[in-house]
């Protein structure tokens, strides 16, 4: 019953206004490539010091949720993920937009984000303490296997072109090694350049590899950016609902994956959406459509990345360990406000925590109307803006966005360099996604591997670290399943095709007889 009071508190006029403003601002920031959720939250933190803690948290939570969702717009409409969480949304979102289904894709992304956000927040409210132990069960070997699992997605993403996919992934892995190593502090592949000593920032890599080739192609070809839908029948909300209902298992599974991956510090929204995309594709009846504009893919990634918001707050609030980078900023804000975090927070500061969680739920619900309206507007304007204006605008944003990561021109230089390389590789048939997967997952895999090895070595049981832990083995099994799934699926498909051919001959013979 106590919770109901907190619910009313969160519903106060001021808090509702803050949640509304936060979601709206978050969506806009998230949609701009390079301006990430972390940045949005960091910029806002000083303003919250003047508010009471619960209101401050509500607005931070709202802007965070909004930004994660907003990343899907640019992923769908421009093939440029606005935040790293939206990488996998480009796989199916952009193909849908290209064939004229942009409005539908945005509506589906909105519904999936709301569902993911709600499930994540509800799990935060009811299951936070037990779920926090999940974060603790994941040690270095589990992170290693999780990253390997993510990398196996390459085999699924590059059907028919496996060699090129693997070469791209290796290129991405090498990119992830550039700079000062976390373990050992070796300086690698910097070629004596100060620009590279900080490594390749993932966001700079994303903007370069996804945005720049799109921009060059836009300039180099005469085709319009997106095919305009033949019937611009508004939100296509009914259709979206129908698709969502067909994918309800997918949506719920992806939300749960998102929440659980969000709990793991250092994994984050990009890993969550990649893992759920992979799972959604594997369990789908028509996996061959994935990557060509399958709505199920968008549902999986968008439900998962918004679920990481609630999931990430679980270790933040229960253990005092931030689950995602924006959580680290929010945790710092709590400290400055003099709030003692840690396991006692739920009991000692229940009013703040529960008001915040209700605020998060309300913010997520507000995302539905705001998102649909803003998304519609974004789609319309992207379609309506002539190429001569669209290209310079996006080009400008890519430079600003990459600069804004660390207030540093080095990242802009890295972004442009990778962009040109990415365009060249694209022409040669190398897709950007395997490269980005290598870049994102390389560090997680490397650190997990070396840490597990060091610990195993100290304990005199290296093999036990990698193969003697149940969670590790389960993740490894999924990885193997995903790796060989295309082979198995085509074998099964071939057998089915054969069988149905036999059936047909039998039928036709029967008919003849």
């Amino acid at each position, binding site marked *: 019953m106590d919770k109901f009071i907190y619910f009313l508190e969160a519903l106060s006029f001021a808090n509702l206004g803050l949640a509304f403003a936060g979601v709206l601002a978050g969506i*806009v*920031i998230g949609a701009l490539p390079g*301006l990430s959720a*972390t940045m949005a939250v*960091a*910029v*806002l933190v*000083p303003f919250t010091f003047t508010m009471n803690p619960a209101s401050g948290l509500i607005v931070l939570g709202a*802007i965070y949720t909004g930004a994660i969702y907003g990343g899907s717009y640019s992923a769908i409409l421009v093939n440029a993920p606005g935040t790293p969480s939206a990488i996998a949304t480009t796989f199916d979102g952009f193909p849908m937009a290209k064939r004229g289904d942009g409005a539908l894709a945005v509506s589906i992304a909105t519904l999936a984000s709301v569902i993911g956000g709600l499930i994540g927040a509800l799990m935060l409210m009811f299951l936070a303490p037990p779920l926090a132990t999940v*974060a*603790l*069960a*994941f*040690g*270095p070997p589990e992170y290693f296997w999780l990253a390997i699992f993510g990398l196996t997605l390459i085999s699924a993403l590059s059907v028919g072109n496996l060699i090129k996919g693997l070469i791209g992934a290796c290129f991405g892995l090498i990119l992830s090694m550039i*700079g*000062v*190593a*976390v*373990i050992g*502090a070796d*300086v690698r592949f910097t070629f*004596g350049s*100060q620009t590279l*000593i*900080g*490594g390749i*920032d993932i966001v700079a890599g994303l903007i370069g590899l996804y945005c720049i080739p799109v921009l060059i192609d836009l300039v180099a070809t005469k085709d319009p950016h997106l095919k305009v839908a033949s019937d611009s029948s508004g939100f296509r909300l009914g259709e979206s609902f129908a698709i969502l209902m067909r994918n309800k298992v997918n949506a719920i599974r992806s939300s749960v994956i998102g929440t659980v991956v969000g709990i793991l*510090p*250092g994994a984050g929204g990009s890993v969550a959406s990649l893992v759920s995309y992979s799972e959604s594709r594997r369990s789908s009846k028509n996996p061959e459509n994935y990557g060509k504009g399958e709505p199920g893919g968008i549902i999986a990634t968008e439900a998962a990345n918004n679920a990481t918001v609630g999931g990430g707050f679980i*270790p933040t609030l229960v*253990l*005092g*360990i*931030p689950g995602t*980078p924006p959580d*680290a900023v*929010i945790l*710092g804000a709590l*400290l*400055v406000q*003099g709030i*003692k*975090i*840690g*396991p*006692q927070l739920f009991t000692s500061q229940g009013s703040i925590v529960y008001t915040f969680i209700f605020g998060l739920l309300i913010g997520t619900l507000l995302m539905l109307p705001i998102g649909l309206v803003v998304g519609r507007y974004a789609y319309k304007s992207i379609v309506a803006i002539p190429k001569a204006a669209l290209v310079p605008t996006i080009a400008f944003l890519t430079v600003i966005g990459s600069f804004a990561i*660390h*207030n*540093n021109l*080095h990242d802009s230089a890295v972004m442009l360099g990778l962009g040109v390389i990415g365009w060249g590789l694209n022409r040669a048939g190398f897709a950007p996604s395997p490269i980005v997967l290598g870049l994102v997952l390389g*560090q997680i895999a490397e*650190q997990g591997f070396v*840490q597990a090895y*060091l*610990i195993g*070595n*100290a*304990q*005199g049981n290296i093999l036990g670290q990698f193969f003697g832990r149940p969670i590790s083995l389960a993740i490894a099994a999924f990885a193997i399943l995903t790796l060989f799934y295309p082979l198995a699926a085509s074998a099964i498909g071939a057998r089915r095709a054969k069988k149905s051919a036999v059936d047909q001959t039998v039928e036709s013979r029967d008919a003849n007889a």
Partner: protein
Amino acid sequence: MRMKTLLSTAVFAFALSAGVASAQDYPSKPLNYIIPFNAGGESDVAARFQQPYLEEAAGQNVVIQYISGAGGAQAWSQLNGMEADGYTMMGSNLPHIILQPMAQDVGYKTEDITNVYFFQYTPDALLVPADSDFKTLEDFVNYAKENPGAATVAGSATNSANHVAATKLNELAGIQTTYIPFSGTSPSMTALLGGQVQGAFSYSTAALNQGDQVRVLAVAAEERLPALPDTPTFKELGYDMVGGAYRGVAVPSGTPEDVRTKLSDLLGEVNANPEFKKKMEDAGFVVISVPYSEVPAFMEERKAQYDSVAKIMGIETSSN
């Protein structure tokens, strides 16, 4: 929100283009306080604590910005290229600015960083999970003595304050432990709480954040911390270990002497504020006051400390 970013960028540009300041009217416009790490870390939290008091002392706004990357090296290598009028100041951290240039070419040298004030440090703390068999530091040391190399100690990064602390304890206690570097304090704390490692070196601040999930075996401070009254210091237990991550403020090398002194005085005023001190101590920071005039002696003393440890860690002192 974007307005704010634009605004701070504009302020930043304005500060860059402004003329030479004289100490009489300094400060007469907003101060840019650059943190060489991401938002949310100890450096950021400490700067946020300083911000309102510094604004009060200076009578000007203090704008906090972040230039992160390469463990701070990204920002420090750019410091001397920034406008040297006293309106650009940057967080400066030990042992980072001593060990980084010692280990490799990171684009700056320790002497390139003009520190005007050191205002706090977070003492190293050795943590074990609350349910660990190690009840005291002695238990841990004895275990490590009997099983050389078997005790695993997590920490944040290589050649970092945590790494120095682990190496130093090994040396002082005559033990051998395995240091496991993680990409930050959060993953290292997660590994500790999950029992992936047996202990972790972190700071007093992290020890407070984890509350009763962890047992703090000892802290590397001169005296027991007000926030952790029951935790012994390494010194009481017979290990001469006082240290951690020291944080100060540096300015570009061209900043006039009188402006450096004035800035040091302003930061000293903040440190003298009992309210500021209380807030910092509650969060686990130890407030120290090393004004501009005492910085050279302080740096010499810390350098000597890190030199001996660096040799053991295998960092070659560069030939210059």
